[in-house]
């Protein structure tokens, strides 16, 4: 339920501006909410400066939530190589564990990965829950989820973090449902409310135009996926001590309804977009497929991956797996170089959280310049070769 306190409402209309579904109108200078449109998202409650709007929530006791201890990180790996997002999560987990005075655990699932557990301890894990089994060789959401659910029921962690990768997101959604746990997607910031001892999760919505802070106070574990490249990695300290807890994969957990057949690495992307620190992206201004050679050269010189706008992909200049934006991937590199990309909102929502944005475009009015930290107004076919030359000179 959402309640308007008419004695406090001054008719300032801030809530009308803040409502994403246009459910609020002013009637006799008081806010009136159309309950057929309202989705109870709470945006109006946040913007009201007069505490005139209140979310009324029926709180239900959900059993013991205090028996849960420890911050867990999902130790995503492929063929025994630990994903760097795990080290970013470990860094954050140590910080959260300090505030909650608890331990950091890593759930580590795979086949033939036992000797990698020490890397996780060096990066900040106090305990590694290792499930090493041939059935877990390849990621299948069903088998992995059943394994993790059983670990959670046994050890009762209060928080579980996973990378907001394709694997992380597919896995934790399947875990949160049977556990009846709160799950927040794609967080960019996490901290502990020290008074309430709960996890406060900040995430972008509407493509980063709005930020929301989400909590799950009455449910455990509190679960979140975290955007890659936003948080710094934990440094390795080989002298750190930790415990490896070996758990078994019960053969009954194997889901016969799914079968892994093959994995095919994409030959066209030398570095994958979500791992890349630098992305060089091309748009309509590239003109044709052949010109993407120029971007590949720049990417190679600078040590980055090649991205693209929707226009380039729709024109068939580059495969879809390179597309950045609303109907492609969301990326968060240290440097994003947009070449011949005008900067439609659908593209911006996929890259505007990059730390430094560089735009090269001949149109000085292109919207991309509004989000750019550095802009070059000029012909990209002249600018990029010069840039390649300069970077090579700098790197030599």
């Amino acid at each position: 339920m959402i309640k308007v306190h008419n004695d406090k409402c001054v008719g300032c209309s801030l809530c009308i501006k803040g409502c994403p579904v246009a459910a609020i109108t002013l009637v006799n200078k008081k806010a009136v909410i159309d309950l057929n449109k309202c989705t109870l998202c709470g945006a109006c409650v946040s913007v009201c400066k007069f505490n005139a709007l209140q979310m009324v929530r029926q709180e239900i006791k959900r059993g013991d939530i205090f028996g849960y201890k420890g911050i867990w990180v999902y130790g995503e790996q492929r063929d025994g190589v630990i994903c760097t997002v795990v080290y970013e999560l470990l860094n954050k987990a140590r910080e959260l564990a300090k505030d909650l005075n608890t331990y950091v655990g890593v759930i580590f699932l795979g086949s033939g990965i036992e000797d990698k557990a020490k890397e996780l301890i060096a990066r900040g894990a106090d305990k590694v829950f290792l499930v090493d089994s041939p059935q877990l060789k390849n990621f299948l959401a069903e088998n992995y989820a059943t394994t993790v659910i059983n670990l959670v029921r046994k050890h009762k962690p209060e928080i579980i973090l996973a990378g907001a990768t394709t694997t992380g997101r597919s896995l934790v959604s399947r875990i949160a449902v049977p556990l009846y746990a709160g799950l927040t997607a794609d967080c960019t910031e996490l901290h502990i409310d020290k008074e309430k001892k709960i996890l406060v999760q900040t995430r972008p919505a509407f493509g980063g135009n709005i930020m929301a802070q989400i909590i799950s106070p009455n449910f455990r574990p509190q679960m979140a996926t975290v955007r890659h490249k936003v948080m710094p990695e934990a440094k390795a300290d080989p002298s750190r001590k930790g415990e490896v807890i070996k758990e078994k994969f019960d053969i009954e957990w194997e889901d016969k309804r799914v079968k892994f057949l093959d994995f095919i690495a994409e030959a066209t992307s030398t570095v994958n977009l979500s791992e890349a620190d630098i992305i060089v992206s091309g748009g309509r201004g590239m003109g044709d497929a052949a010109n993407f050679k120029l971007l590949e050269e720049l990417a190679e010189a600078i040590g980055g991956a090649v991205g693209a706008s929707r226009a380039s992909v729709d024109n068939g200049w580059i495969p879809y797996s390179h597309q950045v934006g609303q109907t492609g991937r969301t990326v968060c590199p240290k440097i994003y170089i947009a070449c011949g990309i005008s900067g439609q909102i659908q593209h911006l929502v996929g890259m505007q959280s990059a730390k430094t944005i560089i735009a090269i475009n001949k149109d000085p009015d292109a919207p991309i310049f509004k989000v750019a930290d550095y802009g070059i107004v000029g012909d990209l076919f002249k600018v990029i070769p010069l840039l390649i030359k300069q970077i090579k000179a700098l790197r030599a």
Partner: protein
Amino acid sequence: MNIVVCIKQVPDTVEVKIDPKTNTLIREGVVAVINPFDMYAIEEGVRLKERFGGKVTIVTMGPPQAQDALRDALSLGADEAILLSDRAFAGSDTWATSMVLSRAIEKLGDVDLIICGKQASDGDTAQVGPGIAAHLNFPQATYVRKIDTVHMDTDPKMMVVERLLEEGYEIIELSLPAVVTVLKEINEPRMPSLKGKMRAKSAQIPVWTNKELGIESTQLGLTGSPTQVMKIFTPPHKEGGKIFNGEPETMVADLIKEIKDIL
């Protein structure tokens, strides 16, 4: 093949602009559309039906006006549509939303495949598709870029799909019924036909409330949602950047000077 496609009505982001002064969304005249990824889900459903027979049922949870999205889906070749609408559903997070959708799918019965878009453009969670799979205990394949072989004559029915990952793609085999979430790469959606539009206009769209679904009230809406929105705010406005004009050589040299420390 009986297919259920789950869709969401979202604000059309083409129209969403940011007020540079207040840094808030300007929504004036913003129209509601079908979530972009769901267009590929609808198209894939219709294509599979055209290949294997059966029917495509569109399901959405939302306020009464979400029936516009359902009519649009019908005009694209879907056979039936159901609106899940009840005040008790409002405020649902991904847990409670996938609960409502999965209960509706159970009520429909006899389903071979559930197709969702990869994620919605307003929430960007990608959690509802796998959430439905978990509620129904069906196998899942997320980020599907291709539905390859389909065996309708085996028991159980089987399907081979390609999933796009960060470093490439993988091929997995699923037995049906299953849940897949699809990417843009999977197909090119058709335009609505005139006949489709006519049919969509006059179609009867049943509205199911919780009376039909019978979900415990403690598992619905705000109360049933484990997550709560504590606060919503607009991110700090980015300072205006440095724009270089002039000769390419000078511009590139100036840029390199600025960025050489972060390279």
